[in-house]
Every structure is written in structure tokens, then in C-alpha cells.
């Protein structure tokens, strides 16, 4: 008899254990499948190729811009500013909610038509609701001597391109 008690005391695979095992396997594989679905959905919904205009804009010859002038390129959404210190480019997209701002020559300010934010020609914020100044964009001169602007790369303020 003691032998028998000993056998029962040991945890032999019982019906319950097997069921619990299969439940775990089932739930585990469902969990993996669900996680996989999330990852695949995310991957599928993020386009790998975009047919959007290039981030790099050719702004033409530097000498075509007058000193102390602000020139807007509506198509690419940038301002090219030629100040006494040199050239710089500003992103014309308002930092509030993404509307295209406009340069007002008479008042000498950049204003957003959507919610009334105002900026100086240096991009500095005069009035909200925009939370941040208009960012300066990476600017350089190409081998052909044209002004180039990269709309996807911001640079710190107070940087000028001298030619």
C-alpha cells in the first residue's frame, strides 16, 4: 500500500495537466498570431515608396535674389531670404497646424491665414497660436552654382549661407 500512495503523490501527467498544456499552447499561438497581425498591418499600412515631390528644391541662382528680400516658393512651401548677413531658407508651413503661411510685404511679416500666427522674416515668432518659430532649412550651393534647399532637414536658427 505505501507504494501506491507514493505513486499518487507524484505528479503524473493527468487529464487536467494535458488540457492545461493545450490551453497554454492554444492561447500562446493565438497571442503570437495577434502580435504578428498587428506588425503585418502596421507594415502594410506604411507605404514604402512615396510619390511625393522631392524634399530637395533647386531655388535658382543666388544673385537673382535682392538683398533684404523675402521670396516665397508656393509649390515647395519655402521662403528664401537674403539678409545682409547672407542667405537662409525657412519652411513656410506653419508650426501650429500645418497651413501654408504667406509673406506680407507691406507689414514685413509672415502671417498664417488659418489661425493668425505671425512671424518675423527671420522665422522668429511674433504671435501665437504657433508654438515654435518657422524652422530654418539646410541650404547650400550646388556644383552648378544654384541655391539648394533640403526641406526635410532643419538647422539651428541664426545660420546664414554666405556666398
Amino acid at each position, binding site marked *: 500500500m505505501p507504494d501506491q500512495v507514493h505513486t499518487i503523490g507524484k505528479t503524473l501527467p493527468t487529464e487536467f495537466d494535458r488540457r492545461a498544456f493545450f490551453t497554454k499552447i492554444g492561447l500562446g499561438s493565438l497571442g503570437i498570431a495577434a502580435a504578428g497581425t498587428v506588425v503585418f498591418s*502596421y507594415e502594410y*499600412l*506604411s*507605404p514604402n515608396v*512615396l*510619390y*511625393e515631390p522631392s524634399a530637395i528644391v533647386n531655388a535658382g541662382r543666388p544673385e537673382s535674389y535682392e538683398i533684404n528680400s523675402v521670396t516665397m516658393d508656393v509649390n515647395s512651401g519655402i521662403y528664401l531670404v537674403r539678409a545682409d548677413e547672407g542667405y537662409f531658407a525657412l519652411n513656410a508651413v506653419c508650426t501650429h*497646424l*500645418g*497651413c501654408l503661411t504667406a509673406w506680407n510685404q507691406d507689414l514685413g511679416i509672415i502671417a498664417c491665414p*488659418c489661425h493668425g500666427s505671425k512671424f518675423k522674416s527671420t522665422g522668429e515668432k511674433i504671435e501665437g497660436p504657433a508654438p515654435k518659430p518657422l524652422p530654418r532649412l539646410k541650404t547650400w550651393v550646388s556644383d552648378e552654382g544654384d541655391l539648394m534647399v533640403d526641406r526635410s532637414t532643419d538647422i539651428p536658427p541664426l545660420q546664414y549661407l554666405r556666398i
Partner: protein
Amino acid sequence: MPTKTEDILAKVREGRVWQSVFRSGTGSSTLHRALAIQQNIFLHLFATKVRKRMVRFSATWYLGTLTFGTFLILVITGILLMLYYHPSVPQAYADMKDLQFVVSSGLFLRNLHRWSAQLMVFLVFAHMFKVFYRGAYRTPREFNWVIGVVLLLITLLLSYTGYLLPWDQLAFWAITVGSNLSSAVPLVGNKIHFLLLGGNQVNANALLRFYVLHCVVLPLAAILFIAIHFWRIRKDGGLYVQQSEPKPQQPDEPTVIKKEGR
């Protein structure tokens, strides 16, 4: 004396075709009437019996029913508009103009869709205010209130996604501004913005995504939640009716607090 039309109707109802379609059978007894509701796939969502007080105009102002009515109008007019509208950048705006000026009754259908959409948003709010101020959201109807809030969000999203489809200046800038709001979400804001538009700016991908959301995903979600919403009305004991007006308390009377048993 039964008229000829009634005779024909009675014959149709006793016929094999009718009997095979409508499971409840014929008859005008209370049981038959209850079965007619209970055994119909559409009507079984509703209660088989309602109190007269519940269906009085003053109880709900029929705001929920009216909201559902505008939804039905939107589904029907929306499907018809889809027959002429291509969700692509070169065509979307022209198709919208064609609907206005070239397609027979196009202007009527487009305006019906547009105004019903505005009306639906208004009615959803009115319905929620009415439910709120009558206290109809209280136990056991809290969950149906939550379903209602989900339906409000779906309504607003339907309204928002539909706004881009005319592809005019107003649509473009409204969606530019609106989608930028999603960028404000901490950490994943820019990802959500990118997924929503299918790119970095409102473009062909965004138009197609909003079209699919507007015409397939959101309407299906709305239908599902509307079904649950209606079914829960029955399960929660029918439309809410105020039991009685609260009695004004006499200042001289001592206040007695009774514990109500459930």
C-alpha cells in the same frame, strides 16, 4: 364587411409563400403580434411590447430615430454618389463638379448627402443632450451611453473623412489642419499622422485612405454599434421613462431616508 383588398391580403398571408417567409404565422392576437416582432431579424432587436409613455413624443423627441433616419439617407445617397466619384487626385474634384452640373439629380443627391451629414451631427448631439438631461444614462443604461459615445465618435470621423472627398481647397486645408492634430499625440503622433495620410502630406494616398474609411470601414463600424445600441435598449428595460416627478420637499417635514431594497 371586408373589402376586396383585405380579402386579397388575407389570401396572400395564408398562402404558402408568405407562410414560408414569415415564421410567426398570421393572426392578430397579442401572441401573434409579439411573435411578429420577436421572430423578425430586424425587429427582434426591439422590445416586443412597449409602454405608451415610452413612445410619446415628449419622452425622447424621437431624436434617436431621427438620427438613424439621417444615417439611412446618408447610406443610400452615399452609395449613389459612389457611382460617379473616383477617389483619385486628377478626377475627384472634376467628379464632384460633374455631380453638381452634369449628372441628372446629382446636385440634389450631393446636397442631400451634405445636409443630412450636417443634420446627423446636430441630431447626435441633441439626442445625447436629451438623454443626459433626463438622466436616461443611469443604471442599467450606462453601457448603452458608452456605446452612444462610440457612435458619436464614429459620426464625427465619418463627417471628417467625408470632408476631404470633394478635393477642393477647403477640403485640402481642413484635412491638413485636422490631421496635424494627430501629430500632437505623445511619442507616436507622427506615426499616426503618417499612417492616416499614407504619407507626409495630404496627397493621393490620403484621398484613397479617407475614401475607404468613409465608404467602408466607418459605415460598417457604425452599423455594428447601432445594432448593439438598439438591442441594448430592449435588454436594459426599454426606453427610459421617468417614473414620476420628484415631489417638492416640505420644509417643516422631517427628512426620512428610506433604504430601498433591490
